[in-house]
């Protein structure tokens, strides 16, 4: 398909779904209830929404869905640091029950004992996995969890009269939200770069810490896939000046049951339930995040917490030191139930198998990728990696002028994703592959074969790669329009006004 815009498919008078009719008794009793509105608050002109029959709406969105490449449909190991593992269909089925979907989050606890028990049990399981004392499931995603941790760090220092701590230290290979959340919370951000071996620079950290240090926000393994063996020293350095250590565990998949945040001395950590615990990413959310903290930080957890008195589960809103709400209610319940179900289907032994196979897959992929001429894996040459590897096509680019981005777009022609990864491009011509435990050896072999084929094309027929995609729904964007205020168009209204009416 190349499906047209829904706005172009409108026919006046067509209806997609009808609201329930108003009972005659109500209509008789109240008349036109909208008559009570002052004229300025009564809509004068109906919204210019398109008018379509139900089947036409359905067909439109089904076709758009077929123009989209979900993880269920491809060998999805190339989403940068954001590879999605298999999200079991049975968990989707479970959360569709009206017992969850049509549960109002403001219901009395007596009517929500089932979901509260799941939240409570999930907290206990994540506490065990991280070694932390308490866990909140309220944050809506990984970045929101980072924000939540920063807010708790701020509240912790404030409670101790140490609000003068105004610096947060992070590393360049940590997710940008670590830096950005700290800045938004009012902190000055200090960024550490890797040393020659690819580890965050411990000496730089030592130079950076002071009594202004509020916290270190750090990932391990970083997106390079290299585990920092001196992580406990990093934590100790920060603790030595009174700062807190906060562990971004978005990359936890390879170390489940192997090592835990608490064991390295961290005060806070967070997980992405969608990355590590299998919930689907839904085109970019809703996801779900979880923050684990030590007892010292627990008073600052978002409100409410889920508690159990031995007989009954209940929400505790009476938390005077809490940072309050980071989100309405208690979190993205369907994803929490999915993640709970996933852990329950695996158990301790299964989680460990997840980690081990994810790491095996990654090192297998590394071995095979490095056989492709033009590919390298910067830093820590010859070392094993944990969950992912940031590769570089620098050599191929130098040879052919074909860039990593081009390779990604050409990969789309072969039916797989490939993402060049986060700014800034510290690694030149980067590509981050993360196979997780979900993909079979045959899948990994196929992915490598695609990479090899594209690399060969870059040498033999670079134009084809540079002008890719050729087999996608559409061809390469003329991107300039996206940064030009005179023509960018975020809505159909704006497009009509700025582009259609102008031509």
């Amino acid at each position, binding site marked *: 398909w190349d*499906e047209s815009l829904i706005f172009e498919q409108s026919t006046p008078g067509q209806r997609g*779904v009808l609201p329930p009719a108003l*009972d005659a008794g109500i209509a008789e009793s*109240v008349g036109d*209830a*909208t008559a009570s509105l002052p004229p300025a*608050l009564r*809509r004068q002109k109906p919204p210019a*929404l398109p008018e379509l029959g139900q089947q036409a709406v*359905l067909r439109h969105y089904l076709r758009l869905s077929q123009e*989209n*490449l979900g993880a269920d*449909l491809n060998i999805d190991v190339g*989403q940068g640091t954001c590879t999605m593992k298999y999200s079991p269909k049975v968990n989707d089925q*479970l959360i569709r029950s009206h017992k969850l979907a*049509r*549960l109002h*989050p403001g219901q*009395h606890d*007596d009517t929500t004992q*089932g979901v509260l028990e*799941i939240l409570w049990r999930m907290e206990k399981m994540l506490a065990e996995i991280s070694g932390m004392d308490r866990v909140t499931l309220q944050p809506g995603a990984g*970045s929101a969890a*980072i924000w939540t941790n920063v807010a708790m760090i701020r509240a912790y220092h404030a409670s101790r009269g140490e609000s003068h701590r105004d610096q947060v230290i992070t590393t360049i290979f940590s997710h940008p*939200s670590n*830096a*950005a959340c700290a*800045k*938004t*919370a009012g902190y000055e951000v200090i960024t550490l770069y890797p040393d020659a071996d690819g580890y965050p620079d411990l000496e730089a950290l030592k130079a950076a810490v002071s009594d202004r240090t509020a916290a270190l926000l750090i990932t391990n393994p970083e997106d390079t896939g290299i*585990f920092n*063996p001196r992580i406990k020293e990093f934590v100790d350095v920060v603790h030595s000046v009174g700062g807190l250590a906060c562990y971004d565990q978005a990359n936890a998949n390879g170390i489940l049951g192997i*090592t835990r945040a608490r064991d390295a001395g961290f005060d806070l950590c967070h997980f992405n339930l969608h990355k590590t615990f299998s919930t689907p*990413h*839904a085109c970019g959310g*809703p996801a779900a995040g979880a923050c684990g903290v030590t007892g010292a930080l627990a008073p600052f957890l978002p409100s409410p917490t889920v508690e159990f008195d031995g007989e009954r589960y209940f929400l505790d809103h009476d938390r005077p030191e809490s940072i*309050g709400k980071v989100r*309405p209610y208690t*979190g993205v319940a369907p*994803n929490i139930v999915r993640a709970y179900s996933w852990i*329950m*289907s*695996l158990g301790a*032994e*299964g989680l460990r198998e*997840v980690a081990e196979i994810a*790491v*095996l897959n990654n090192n*297998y992929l590394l071995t095979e990728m490095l056989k492709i001429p033009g590919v390298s894996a910067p830093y820590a040459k010859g070392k094993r990696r944990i969950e992912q590897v940031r590769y570089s096509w620098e050599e191929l680019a130098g040879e052919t002028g074909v860039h990593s981005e081009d390779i990604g777009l050409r990969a789309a022609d072969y039916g797989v*994703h490939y993402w060049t990864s986060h700014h800034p491009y510290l690694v030149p011509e980067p590509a981050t592959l993360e196979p997780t435990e979900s993909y*079979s*050896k045959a899948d990994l072999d196929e992915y490598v074969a695609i990479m090899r084929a594209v690399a060969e094309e870059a040498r033999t027929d670079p134009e084809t790669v540079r002008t890719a*995609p050729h087999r*996608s729904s*559409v061809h*390469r*964007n003329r991107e300039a329009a*996206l940064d030009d205020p005179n023509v960018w168009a975020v*809505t159909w209204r704006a*497009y009509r006004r700025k582009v259609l009416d102008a031509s």
Partner: protein
Amino acid sequence: MEHPYIPNSAPRVKAEMLAAVGAADIEEFYADIPESLRLRRPLDLPAPMRGEADLVRHVEGLLDRNTSTRDALSFLGGGSYAHHVPAVCDEVNSRSEFLTAYAGEPYEDHGRFQALWEYQGLMGELLEMDVVNVPTYDGFQAVATALRMAGRVTGRTRVALATPIDPALRSKLDDYLRGAMTIGGPLEGDDLAAVYTAYPTYLGVVDPKTPEYVAAAHAAGAVAVVGCDPIGLGVLAPPSSFGADIVCGDIQPLGIHPHFGGGHAGYIATRDEQRFVQEFPSRLFGIVPTAVEGEYGFGDVYYDRTSFALREEGKEWVGTAAALWGITAGVYLSLMGPAGMAELGEGLMARCRYLMDALASVPGIEVLDAGVPHLKEFAVRYTGKTAAEVDDALRDRGIHGGVVLSKTFPELGESALYCVTELHTQADLDRLAAELKEILA
């Protein structure tokens, strides 16, 4: 163990792969992890339920302990709404292609980009505004970000609240604006960055003075931020029509189940002015020509304002958010069309008024703000019984009563916030009134 979710756990495959990478065992990959950090015991987790059927029985058994809004007549609102969700909405958002997609490029994920761009456009028509973001997490985040945008636009730091707001939202704002902006004070002054107005208010009122609050903001050189439940905009004038600069809120009512709080997604809309556009932390998808004449492409507008691009130099921060709910709200608006949204709004106002009238006639109940228009919610004060007592009694009779306000709005006394939806029949409303009459007798 061979597990269905871990294909390479099959022993033969595992051995083959280890050989290929030249590793003796998997421990070798963990060589960099110091022994002192190694967990040398199994995690202490419940025994797994490896059979899919066992898992289903376990989880269904837990969920069955919930009493949903389908199981019991419900009048709960206050930020989460059990409106009807058309089947096509559920069908589209449960498609594997959308449900399991993530961060693909505008080519292999053309469908996602188009669906979200169309969502922006559909919201743009409803709101009569030219810029709408890819959804952020929830309405709370949308309001919080809208206010910080106002702070950046004006270079000022105070937010004045024109109307009562959700106490949970207030908690979010206290955290999110802390250090950057203050909340409270009059609708005037040189320090005023924004006037925030809820439309309708948390107590369900369509405040006739809303345009005046907007005007007050403008008079002070501040930004008028209106928090708006979009479900009413088939009958209510869009805030842009009386001058709102930033409109924001939650799209959960638009075809998304409550999901016990998992159905939220926030929208932020502005005029197409660079001073606003440049302050969005969120992604904004734009339509763009491609290398082939006549094709519609889609991509990120003005990406170099985001923290993805600039880390701490970007505007606030951005991660993923609630894209699937944006697609869903787009499906909803496409299905409803202008006539559907108008009929829906009329029906909500009529049911709300009917229930207000019915409860006003119940001895022991006082309907608050009865003289002004309401969209779908209204507050009542109980005389004689506490709100918790009434709520317990209703629950015993199989009814989820309105949100209890006694603790969050002590100034209203023993009070509760009742919400109607288009699902309520006259019989449902009459039943509530009759039960309350008995309870309060």
